[in-house]
């Protein structure tokens, strides 16, 4: 046990005194903020620019049409249909069209464009349709009120059968934030563990350390050390994030904690960490360097990304078959179960079954990883092939 803590302690101090780690610790919230903020910012910056259409108006409906258009699309009247094309070209305007009697009777109109902005064109199209309806309506007996009544869309209200099924925004947001945060930590810790094993091999330190502690202790010490490191990161980020979140949104810590299913997050967060940390530390022991990872090794590295594939389908249908599968399949269940627990009420059998399967899988992976680690850490100069790794697993315990 002593050796275990010493290894864990070494991993922690080594990282805490490492510039890269500190930079990562500080930069991650900034990056996350950027990822969340930049799309919003870009969206704001991407305000449609002003476009101008020239119109030959034989109907006197220019003002009505302008009223139907958003502010950024301006209409300018032009008398001479012969020179209109040149004017559009010279002023670099968006296009032109002619409003005449045949538009009212046939509904056909040519919009000649100079600027092929799909968005502007479809807005113009929509407004022309509305104008056509208005004009035709004015010629018929139906009143505007009647038309509005006919065209009104159905107003659907979504009511859950049981009150507890009703999604609460707070639940959803907090669950999603936690899912992303915990999973991000599992991923970074996993990668760091892989690097740590790999580096110990590359620095040729494994053998010296293994003359002082058993390989199982070395592996467990690493896993424990990076778990505590991850926890520190999580606490640090929450300590920074909470005041910021409270500043922007009306937010109470107690309410947020009450909103999440704490046992589920704890269990699946921990289980997911165990599973992936063992997987990655074992993987690191089979590698000489990251660049020359074999196909099977790359596949293992990609495994956590599976969860992200399921995010969309699970959010859109948290009780669907895909969601149920992904929340039970042990390589995706940690993230997906946390997410589902915030989106819907997960049946107890699913939670328990998934938890049991996760524990079992983590246990098997830890066993395999320690066998791989034992041999792999002492192998130098090349990445182990899949066949070799299978052979190691079959070696007798020493």
């Amino acid at each position, binding site marked *: 046990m*002593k050796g275990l803590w010493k290894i864990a302690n070494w991993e922690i101090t080594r990282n805490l005194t490492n510039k890269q780690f500190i930079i990562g610790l500080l930069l991650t919230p900034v990056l996350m903020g950027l990822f969340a903020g930049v799309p919003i910012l870009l969206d704001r910056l991407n305000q449609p620019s002003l476009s101008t259409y020239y119109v030959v108006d034989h109907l006197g409906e220019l003002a009505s049409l302008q009223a139907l258009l958003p502010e950024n699309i301006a209409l300018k009247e032009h008398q001479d249909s012969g020179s209109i094309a040149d004017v559009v070209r010279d002023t670099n305007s968006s296009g032109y069209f002619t409003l005449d009697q045949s538009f009212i009777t046939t509904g056909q109109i040519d919009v000649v464009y100079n600027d092929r902005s799909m968005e502007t064109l479809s807005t113009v199209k929509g407004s022309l349709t509305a104008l056509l309806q208005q004009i035709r309506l004015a010629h018929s007996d139906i009143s505007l009120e009647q038309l509005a009544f006919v065209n009104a869309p159905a107003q659907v209200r979504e009511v859950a059968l049981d009150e507890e099924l009703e999604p609460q925004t707070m639940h959803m947001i907090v669950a999603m934030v936690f899912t992303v945060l915990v999973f991000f930590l599992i991923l970074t810790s996993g990668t760091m563990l892989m690097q740590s094993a790999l580096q110990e091999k590359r620095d040729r*330190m494994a053998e010296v350390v293994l003359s*002082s502690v058993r390989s199982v202790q070395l592996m467990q010490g690493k896993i424990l050390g990076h778990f505590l490191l991850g926890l520190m990161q999580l606490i640090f980020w929450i300590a920074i994030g909470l005041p910021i979140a409270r500043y922007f949104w009306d937010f109470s810590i107690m309410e947020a904690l009450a909103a999440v299913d704490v046992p589920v997050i704890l269990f699946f967060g921990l289980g997911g960490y165990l599973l992936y940390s063992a997987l990655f530390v074992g993987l690191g022991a089979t590698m000489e360097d990251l660049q020359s990872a074999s196909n099977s090794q790359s596949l293992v590295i990609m495994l956590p990304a599976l969860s992200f594939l399921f995010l969309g389908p699970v959010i859109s249908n948290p009780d669907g078959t895909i969601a149920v599968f992904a929340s039970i399949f042990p390589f995706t269940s940690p993230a997906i179960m946390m997410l589902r627990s915030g989106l819907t009420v997960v049946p107890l059998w699913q939670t328990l079954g998934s938890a049991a399967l996760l524990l079992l899988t983590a246990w098997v992976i830890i066993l395999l990883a320690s066998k791989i680690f034992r041999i792999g850490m002492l192998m130098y100069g090349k990445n182990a092939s899949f066949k070799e790794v299978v052979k190691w697993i079959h070696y007798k315990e020493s």
Partner: protein
Amino acid sequence: MDGLQVQGIRKVYGSTAVVDNVSFEAPQGRILGVLGPNGAGKTTIIRMIMGITAPDQGDIYFTDNSVKTKGVPFSTIGYLPEERGLYKEAKVMSILLFLSGLKDVPKAQAKERAMLWLRKFELEDYAYKKVEQLSKGMAQKVQFIASILHEPKFIVLDEPFSGLDPVSQDIFKEEIRALANSGATVLLSSHQMNIVEALCDEIFLIHKGKEVVKGNLESIKERYGSFRVDLLSSAPKEAVLETHMVESVEQLAEERYRYTLKDGIKPLDFVQALPSGLDVRDLTITRPSLHDIFVNVAQGGASYEGSLEDRQLGNYA
């Protein structure tokens, strides 16, 4: 006997026995040289002694102060592996403290000893520098310090001299000898035969996982190294061969021949048996060096092994 005892260890990887029925002893206070060509199984033997891997068969015992334990306790081991390095981004002192901490040395004591050793190797200015700032030789000295800082009773040094300049080699040799004299059991593996010859008390030679030669260095030379006589003479070699004491003969120059004596023939007997009136202008008697024995084993492995076996069975005078 205090020290290390290895009894019939065997390790099989897949279908090949990397180490096959190997036994030897390393008495306390002495330096045992473990020799063998690349891939002979030295590292595997060392790892089994360290407890890093376990033998499929056989036992390893370590006795200290007449207390015998199965396997060598981790805290008594000092290990300098052949494949070595240091955490590049860490500071010299923190690595030394971490590694001696794993061996349960109290921090204050470890720090004191570390400074002492660093001073000995003129590295005290680098104690708080990162390993990346060290030269290769410096790093090797730090690794050496790391392996002995906890005052181990059992020290394994795998190629400790590779990459060292002659001055540093001498310092290492002195320190290794001093460690043995202070009561440690030292196991030394090296390809530098001259150093092994100068430093080791006992030799264990292994080839293809099997032990070939072992024992006291002098007695090995006595047993396996037939005398060689280089003779510069105008007399024909047939005249010398008539003594029936010569195993083989090799012409070195026009009138210079090297006679390898048969086993058990003493040089003085040979010289006395030489025909009287032989014109001898130069005569040297030598024993094959450890280097020769090693090369013989590494190259002509099988045949040499065979003849050695005969000798061990007592088929010599």
